[in-house]
């Protein structure tokens, strides 16, 4: 009797890793208020591993839940492992999302990647730009 699966509702009403990391090593923000979803990911990196991750999200229940589960899925992973996270895996981990909400999972994937990219940039670590979303050209928030 709900728009969302139990798993989504659990992550939405009890989101994991909400908040920010004041001395984060990488921060990524995607989306915009116009389309109604903004996700901000904070990473603490130690020895190429995501030691801690937190998020802030302005958006619908699915946006909050995908943020929450994505942080759980990458915590403790190496950056290379984290980079392989796909929005499809996020959706599957949540037990599915309604079609119009799939874009939220894309946002979560992108917010994570934007934070990793930010970490590389800050530390002048060379990386393959093609693996990262170009937020300026991103049309995600117009997807339905």
């Amino acid at each position, binding site marked *: 009797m709900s*728009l*969302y699966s139990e798993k989504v*509702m659990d992550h*939405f*009403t009890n*989101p994991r890793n*909400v*908040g*920010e990391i004041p001395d984060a090593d990488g921060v990524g*923000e995607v989306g915009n*208020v*116009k*389309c*109604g*979803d*903004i*996700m*901000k990911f904070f990473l603490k990196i130690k020895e190429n591993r995501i030691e801690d991750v937190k*998020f*802030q*999200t*302005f*958006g*619908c*229940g699915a*946006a*909050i839940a995908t943020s929450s589960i994505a942080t759980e899925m990458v915590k403790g992973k190496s950056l290379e492992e984290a980079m392989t996270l796909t929005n499809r895996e996020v959706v599957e981990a949540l037990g599915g999302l*309604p079609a*119009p909400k799939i*874009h939220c999972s894309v946002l979560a994937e992108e917010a994570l990647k934007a934070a990793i990219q930010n970490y590389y940039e800050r530390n002048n670590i060379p990386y393959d730009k093609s693996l990262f979303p170009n937020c300026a050209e991103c049309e995600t*928030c*117009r997807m*339905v």
Partner: protein
Amino acid sequence: MKIYADNAATTKMSETAFNAMLPYLKEHYGNPSSLHTPGQQAAEALQTAREIVADAIGCTPREVLFTSGGSESDNQAILTAAKLGKKKGKKHIISTAFEHHAVLHALQKLEKEEGFELTLLDVHENGLIDPAQVADAIREDTCLVTIMYANNEIGTVQPIAEIGAICHDKNVLFHTDAVQVVGHLPIDVVSDNIDLLSLSGHKFHGPKGVGALYVRKGIPIATLIEGGAQERGKRAGTENMPAIVGMAATLEESMNRLTENIQKISALRDQLIRGLSTIEHAALNGDPEKRLPGNVSFCFEGIEGEALLLLLNAKGIYASSGSACTSGSLDPSHVLLAIGRSHEIAHGSLRLSLSEENTEEEVDYMIKEIPKVVDQLRMMSPVWVSKVRGEKDFIL
């Protein structure tokens, strides 16, 4: 506690409506077009229902056409005016930017497919039309002014009688979507100068799937659904007898209790508005005075409406964000944009629509719980956090 505060989306059917429907769902199943006793029994009930609906809005029974609901009524009203206009070479229609989609989409279809020209009047920050705008907008080739009696999202009630008077002065047909008003506020199509009016049963504790269209005598009605001779050939289809009878019964009751209900519901509304006004960086949508007795509509900065709804749902508060129809879409409500809310602010809307079944205790509970939920979402919102830190400016 379970609080139904989404009465603008749909209402709980009254006992009166249910009891009136019951015989027509069971033993009185005749088709009113049939000549035999069960058929004629239905035909008589149909006539009685028509008289009741006519009485409620101050017209004659022959001016009432039963339809499947508000959307159909709106479509047929607009088609009627457009057909007449087309014949006379008048293809300009005046409306507002925040009509219900049943009006707006019907108008846009005329624009796209039939070459009509639309003027959508500005509804200002308070959600109100100034009758002078209508006077100014009417042209030689205007065939219709269609302005909703009250808005379904922000609840503002327009100066309909004055707008109607201007239309009649200038000999232009005037339609009003009164779906949110019938059964809630007094309406008199004569003194309100209305030519066409739409209403829908399920918005005033009647059944779903039934509505009516009032068409002033003398206006040739265009048919949307062609077929049998029902509704004097203007709306085909076997009549939805249980629903028609149920709608009439509950409308009659609503009209009898109108003053009492308005008083009770307005008091609850004002209590709720006062309570929610203590939330910082929030704003009431629509004029505080000229609004529906049951409508409470707010925007809360820094959060998104759907998340708000779901958390309220978990607390047993059943509300809406913008209109039910647009919930779930990515675009914020066209109504909130029309009153000048930015996209960001429009996303953070909450509509609580009350009925006479709500109680003071429920309102107290909402006043207690809603700020908590708003806070909870704000705490995890990057938008809110950056505003609190002064990195971005507050809008509200």
